[in-house]
């Protein structure tokens, strides 16, 4: 309960300051504007964009509905390709498996390409505590790592920073020109990271998709940093949520373009790579070892209920974040969770502690923009409602909340009771019991002097008849 209060109180504090931070809003609106323009332009590649969503929704539904079967097929194909497969029931299992590989290769340096699953299990902290340096290689993640901040957005980690912010940060930490252009900053990071790719013993990536038929691990990226992280290192470690598995390589014909179209507005992301194990005998380069860690960490809880199961169809394109009016105002860090935005609201309470994170579902206007853009047609706003319902009914709901809603709904059902006492008493009743939970930024609607009930009766039975 105390944890419950802490997390949601922090949320209240942060959102009330971020929500009124005009500078933050300006940067986000600018960056979001560019995203929306690109996505709009990308629509012309589709004869029938709605059909693309239907098909994608269907593919992901099929994949998740037979998740067990697909994972077992993936596991055996992956082993045939010469990779190891490790199942991780929780974050701890995954962390230990990574550390084991790092230790075995006797390395103190790991290069990592962008992966939300590694954020979820707080891999960097863990490895650093164990004396291993982790270098984020995706430029956005690199910027965030330099600044000591978690990613702000699941696709564009440094979306809340202007080019001036990044130039100032690089100037402070790396001694570059304080007015350096995005190009100069990118080149600087490129040059610094080149050596690290060669020095590092282990490269860690996430996975956008896993292929049940070929045992393939698919990684989508624009910069080439995941490619570089899996070229010179001795071992390639993949951390993938169990929901990433697809039935067939052929599904990528639709899902690669769709992920690009919704994620960044590109027709195809610059590098879409499939890894089938470590370097083969007849090949000349690549890691000697590949380990794929299949991460549950609460996902099977989402799977249990056919309703929440749909959240596992998510391909992490970020479109729902970019469409969300709440996200645009409070920003990605306010959620205090790895996955922000509408999809974060839906899954975080289930992946973590429901009572601690259910408040996120309250912070929604239920406008439905998220559902409208989702490429795999996850009914996000309905699922947010479902969380609210669960919160209101569940044991985590506060006693006061229970009691007040009960009293309120009884009173509303028994309007005649209230009608007898008149509007002033009604206000008193609602103010007394509901007011404190209603929030100070909203004013309680004062009950009308005459109730709808009595007005209706008057209409249907005019007194002169």
């Amino acid at each position, binding site marked *: 309960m105390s944890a419950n209060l802490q997390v949601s109180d922090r949320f209240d504090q942060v959102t009330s300051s971020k929500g009124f931070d005009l500078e933050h809003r300006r940067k986000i609106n*600018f960056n979001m504007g*560019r995203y929306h323009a690109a996505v709009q332009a990308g629509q*012309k*590649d*589709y004869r*029938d*964009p*709605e*059909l693309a969503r*239907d*098909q994608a*929704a*269907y593919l992901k539904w*099929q994949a998740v509905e037979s*998740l*067990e079967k697909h994972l077992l097929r993936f596991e055996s*194909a992956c082993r045939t*390709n*010469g990779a190891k497969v490790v*199942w*991780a*029931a929780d974050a701890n299992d995954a962390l230990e498996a990574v550390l084991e590989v790092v230790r075995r290769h006797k390395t103190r340096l790991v290069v990592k390409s962008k992966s939300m699953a590694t954020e979820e299990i707080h891999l960097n902290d863990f490895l650093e505590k164990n004396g291993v340096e982790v270098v984020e290689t*995706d*430029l956005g993640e690199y*910027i965030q790592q330099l600044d000591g901040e978690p990613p702000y957005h699941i696709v564009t980690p*440094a979306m809340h920073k202007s*080019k001036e912010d990044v130039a100032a940060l690089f100037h402070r930490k790396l001694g570059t020109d304080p007015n350096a252009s995005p*190009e100069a*900053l*990118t080149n600087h990071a490129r040059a610094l990271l080149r050596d690290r790719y060669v020095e590092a013993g282990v490269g860690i990536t996430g996975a956008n998709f896993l292929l049940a038929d070929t*045992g*393939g691990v698919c990684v989508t990226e*624009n*910069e*080439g*940093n995941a490619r*570089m992280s899996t*070229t010179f290192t001795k071992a390639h470690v993949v951390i993938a949520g*169990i929901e990433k598995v697809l039935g067939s*390589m*052929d599904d990528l*014909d639709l899902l*690669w373009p769709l992920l690009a179209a919704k994620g960044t507005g590109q*027709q*195809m992301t*610059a*590098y*879409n*790579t499939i890894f089938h194990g470590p370097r*083969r005998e007849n*090949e*000349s*380069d*690549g890691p000697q070892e*590949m380990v794929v860690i299949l991460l549950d960490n609460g996902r*099977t*809880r989402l*799977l249990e209920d*056919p309703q929440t199961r749909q959240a596992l169809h998510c391909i992490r394109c970020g479109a729902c974040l970019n469409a969300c009016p709440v996200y645009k105002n409070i920003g990605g860090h306010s959620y205090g969770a790895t996955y922000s935005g509408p999809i974060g609201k839906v899954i975080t309470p289930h992946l973590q502690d429901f009572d601690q994170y259910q408040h996120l579902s309250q912070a929604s206007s239920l406008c439905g923009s998220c559902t409208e853009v989702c490429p795999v*047609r996850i009914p996000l706003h309905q699922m947010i409602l479902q969380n609210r319902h669960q919160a209101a009914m569940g044991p985590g709901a506060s006693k006061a909340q229970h009691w007040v809603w009960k009293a309120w709904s009884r009173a509303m059902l028994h309007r005649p009771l209230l009608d007898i006492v008149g509007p002033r008493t009604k206000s008193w009743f609602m103010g007394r019991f509901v007011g404190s939970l209603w929030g100070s930024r909203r004013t309680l609607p004062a009950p009308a002097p005459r109730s709808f009930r009595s007005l209706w009766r008057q209409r249907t039975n005019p007194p002169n008849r």
Partner: protein
Amino acid sequence: MALSSRETVIQRLRKALIHPSDPPLRVRPEQAAEGPFEPLEEDLALAFAKRLLQLKGQFVYAETQAELATYLTKALEGVDNRHLFCLEPEIQDLLRKSGLPYRVDTERMEEAGVGVTGCEALIAWSGSVMVSSAQAYGRTLTVYPPIHWVVARSSQLVPRLKDAFGLLRQRYSDQNYPSMVSTITGPSRTADIEKTLVLGAHGPRELWVFLLEDEANDNS
């Protein structure tokens, strides 16, 4: 006895999937034959070239080996670091015939100015080049040098991604795929700073595709 993590997760999966869920409502399989994408232009090479240029890649078409030699030489003129690295015998052969020296000392790869490779396929719809680790130093040469030249034959053009997957299946029987297959679409890029496009984030700043007509032989 305590369950292994593997058994734990599999048990959880089994238990969770007891209740099936309904398929999504908006499936229209009757339209699936046509597919959701815009139809392709007739000429695959033209479609490919247009896309690649939009992506800020470079496209060069050569009808004969002699033409290829001229274009390769011209392309190299604009390059600061003229150390070509090439490890694939067929492509080395083309470079030799074009009179361009190349290096093969892979332990000095950091000195490379240009990586020259072949490819698995060219995908017209998206202007993508599919490469793999079955090519000699396929992981390194397609991403590490600051400039990447791809020399391809027109018979390697396929309409869409799924056709390229079909080729892979034919070429490498199941479970024998190259350890890495990468579909490269344009030069390496980032837009992580204020959504401003910068080329050459970690991979090549320049991507060139030289498309050589198949009939082109030594004497032409």
